[in-house]
């Protein structure tokens, strides 16, 4: 009969975390930030497999790391949100609850399974001026081990987060126009360790949660529109 080896829990947690961090650092980064008209999400992604997604009326999703894993999280989020909205009302579907749901799920997966998820995600919610108490935007960042952070202004995920955050800290200000925010997002992504020096519009995936829209606020920005914003 074989006995399982004793493994120090601290050691195991460290190993898992290191494994997850390595996996995430290999991927490209994503920048999300508040601008005058809502929330902007910019990803370096020349592929058709999308990293940004719509969850609900005012909630968007961004994920980095292993595609199969964050895409599963995205779909789980949509399922959660649609059931919640069906059970209660559309205004009852909130980003904070969703971020908590993700945090619980990822936290449990991190402790229980041998291979943790190699993902980092952002849950963004655009405010609604017509709904008392919901006026403010929200950005939640959830890590591979379920750590959850409530961010203000901007938030980055993926490899080389520190240098990206530093660039944003120096250059971000409130009330940016969409054009300025998009440029800042592109410039920030170019500073990633594995980023490209001259990021073309065709290599960007961009979406906004547009405050001025009614109903479903999520909108993808077409390559032509991105190019227009970046060149003019």
């Amino acid at each position, binding site marked *: 009969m074989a006995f399982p080896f004793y493994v120090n829990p601290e050691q195991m947690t460290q190993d898992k975390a290191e494994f997850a961090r390595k996996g995430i650092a290999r991927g490209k980064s994503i920048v999300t930030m508040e601008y005058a008209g809502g929330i902007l999400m910019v990803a370096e992604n020349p592929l058709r497999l*999308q990293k940004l*997604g*719509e*969850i609900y009326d005012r909630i968007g999703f961004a994920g980095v790391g292993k595609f199969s894993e964050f895409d*599963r999280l995205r*779909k*789980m989020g*949509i*399922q959660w949100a*649609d*059931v919640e*909205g*069906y*059970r209660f009302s559309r205004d009852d579907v909130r980003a904070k609850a969703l971020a908590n749901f993700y945090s*619980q*799920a990822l936290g*449990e*997966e991190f402790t229980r399974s041998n291979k943790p998820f190699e993902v980092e995600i952002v849950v963004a919610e655009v405010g609604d001026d017509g709904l008392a108490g919901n006026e403010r935007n929200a950005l939640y960042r959830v890590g591979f081990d379920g750590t959850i952070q409530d961010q203000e202004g901007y938030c980055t995920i993926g490899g080389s987060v520190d240098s990206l955050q530093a660039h944003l800290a120096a250059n971000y200000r409130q009330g940016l126009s969409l054009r300025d925010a998009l440029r800042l997002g592109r410039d920030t992504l170019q500073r990633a360790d594995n980023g490209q020096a001259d990021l073309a519009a065709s290599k960007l995936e961009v979406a906004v949660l547009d405050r001025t829209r009614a109903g*479903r606020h999520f909108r993808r920005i077409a390559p032509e529109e991105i190019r227009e914003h970046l060149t003019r």
Partner: protein
Amino acid sequence: MRFWDGYKGSSFLELLAIEHPHFEPDVRRWFDELGQLPATAHGTTCIGLRFADGALVAGDRLATMGYQVASRDIQKVYATDGYSIMAIAGAAGPAIEMARLLGIQFEHHEKIEGEPLELEGKANTLSQLIRQNLPAAMQGLVVVPIFAGFDLRRRTGRVWRYEVTGGRYEEREFDAVGSGSIFAKESLKKSFRVDATRDEAIRMALEALKDAADEDRGTGGVDLERGIYPTLKTCTVRGIESVSDEEIARAHREVLELRRRPVEA
């Protein structure tokens, strides 16, 4: 928290059935235990027709409970997404719930898969919902909708009618459902032209609804006293647009002028 063993498809209806079965009413048990249902509100005349730019769906606003008015301004025409419309006739409660579920189903699929269902796929989804409702329909909670929309790939408006078993039939011209439908169809039979402009289509629909309200006590007409007008929605390449009450009122006045007879001395 289950990551990999939860439901992974793109259907909200299946998600509910598999992961949240307690949401589904156990209709058979209701009837076994209750015997007969108490009176419920019923909807009445709805029209779907094709015209040059797409499809138009119209419905009156009256709901009745036996011989009494249950509601004077009920909505029977619902946009189920950006390019499809469902109009309901029959038991109002289950029909409105069906329209709501259908809307969530379309949005859910679009978000999960990244692109919307084909119009045909949407029409088929509604078939399945009606088929599932068959046990309730056998007890009197019949839901018979009209489904219409703009097919972005084929660049044309399309209209479907349904029967209680979920049978789905595409109409080349128009159809009507509800207690006043026979009169609405007789009216459209004479006025219908598939190449009609938007204004002409509005006029055809309004006249048909008026004819239905004239002969059928369960169909509401234009309520001038309260300012309640029928619902008319068009679905074209631009998406769904509601016809404004002002426009309906104007068209209604024109029809009245044509039909009004002088007072006898």
